[in-house]
């Protein structure tokens, strides 16, 4: 078990080392990055929007439900909802959702290329296959995920506002006051740092699992599952580490 873990860690670092070499042709990589930006970013917007609006609504309603003390002003619900969404929900939960969507897609795409010898075809041509297939995905993930998370923050806060106002639990004026009160811009910076780390984890871990698929269709499915599971685990571990390092 321990030997296998060390083997996987070693192989992952070797794989990473192979990515950062000079591209065969910069323009081809650039086009790939543009393609991945659409695939990773635009492709995920629907699920991100839906999750964000409803999670924002639920966070607001639950915060209001728990803050029943008359000593606590109603606008505190806005503060709690805003900070929960910015600090934890958007960068972590949304990236966990993306780990499922993007991670499985990357692993199955590269895994299928492996079992159908498309990766061998790249290598025969003299192309650094790991770099060609993975680097554009990592770069695109790093570029687009912060925007996706910012959109999620915005939609989450809007969702909370709509839910509070529609249910009559948190009036609009209190909610808007709450989301503006004691706002720390650094929280956004912290959330974006986390997003960048998580984006790197999702794209690199998923590509690694896809690239080292061995066998057939069954193994492609297994790689896809592994990609999601390991990406999620590492996101949670690094969430704790980054919070400890930056906020504690």
């Amino acid at each position, binding site marked *: 078990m321990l030997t296998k873990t060390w083997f996987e860690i070693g192989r992952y670092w070797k794989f990473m080392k192979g990515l950062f070499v000079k591209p065969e042709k910069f323009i081809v990589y650039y086009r790939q990055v543009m393609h991945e930006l659409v695939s990773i970013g635009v492709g995920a917007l629907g699920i991100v929007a839906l999750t964000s609006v409803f999670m924002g609504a639920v966070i607001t309603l639950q915060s209001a439900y728990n803050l029943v003390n008359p000593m606590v002003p109603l606008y505190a619900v806005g503060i709690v909802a805003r900070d929960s969404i910015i600090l934890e929900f958007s960068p972590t939960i949304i990236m966990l959702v993306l780990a499922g969507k993007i991670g499985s897609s990357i692993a199955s795409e590269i895994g299928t290329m492996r079992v159908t010898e498309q990766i061998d*075809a790249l290598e025969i*041509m003299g192309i650094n296959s790991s770099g060609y297939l993975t680097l554009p995905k990592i770069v695109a993930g790093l570029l687009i995920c912060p925007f996706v998370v910012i959109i999620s923050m915005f939609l989450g806060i809007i969702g909370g506002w709509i839910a509070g106002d529609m249910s009559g639990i948190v009036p609009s004026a209190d909610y808007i006051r709450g989301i503006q009160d004691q706002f720390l811009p650094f929280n956004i910076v912290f959330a974006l740092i986390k997003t960048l780390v998580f984006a790197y984890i999702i794209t690199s871990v998923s590509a690694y699992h896809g690239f080292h698929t061995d066998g057939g269709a069954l193994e492609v499915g297994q790689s896809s599952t592994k990609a999601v599971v390991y990406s999620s685990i590492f996101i949670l571990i690094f969430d704790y580490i980054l919070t400890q390092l930056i906020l504690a």
Partner: protein
Amino acid sequence: MIKVDHIYKTFGEKTVLDDVSCTFETGKVNLIIGQSGMGKTVLMKCTVGLFEVDKGAVYFDGRNFSEMNFKERKPIRQEIGMVFQGGALFDSLTVEQNVMFPLNMFTHMSQEEKLDRVNFCLQRVNLVNSNKLFPSEISGGMKKRVAIARAISMNPKYLFCDEPNSGLDPKTSIVIDNLIMEITQEFGTTTVVNTHDMNSLTEMGEKIVFIYKGKNYWEGTFEELEMSDNPELIDFVYASKIMKSMRKH
């Protein structure tokens, strides 16, 4: 000429290639034949560097390919075209983009020049009006032809075909075999074909290497094969009723 010099390859405890030496001659179709699981594909993959050999060396026109690192191998790799068993076409690219792919990566040709070259290669494999189709929209035989077109797009010196007829009907197989022969003669490539199809053997076997239990059991021309009394080779080549009846005659 490609020279395979005393190569060994093991996977775990299993020795797949055991001291294999052979030569693949320039301007000829060199066939690697043998039963499934005897090491044909491993020999081909070791030759092109997809598997690293444990011992021994592979020489491409005197250049020791096995000793080179990834960067040093690049110029030789660009002289290699390979047709994989399943075609290995890129699913997300059209036929045209597949054939154009190596040109995009390694040449500075203009878009027009690249299109001309792609159309020439596709015409050469008798594929017209298929440029905009995706691999999922074409038949198995067409996929093989696109794979051949992609393999020859960079004017390769060495052409490798891994079971080019697998999954094809006998008529289409003959078309593919003839195409490989014509390309070999036309471009003077060193062509290596991995097969266990006896039709291919009779159609295009100029130089034959018979792999049995990971060893080069027999090597020679088609005429020499017909005269051979090597029991394993005879057992393999004349396994089918058709081939047995051919031998009687």
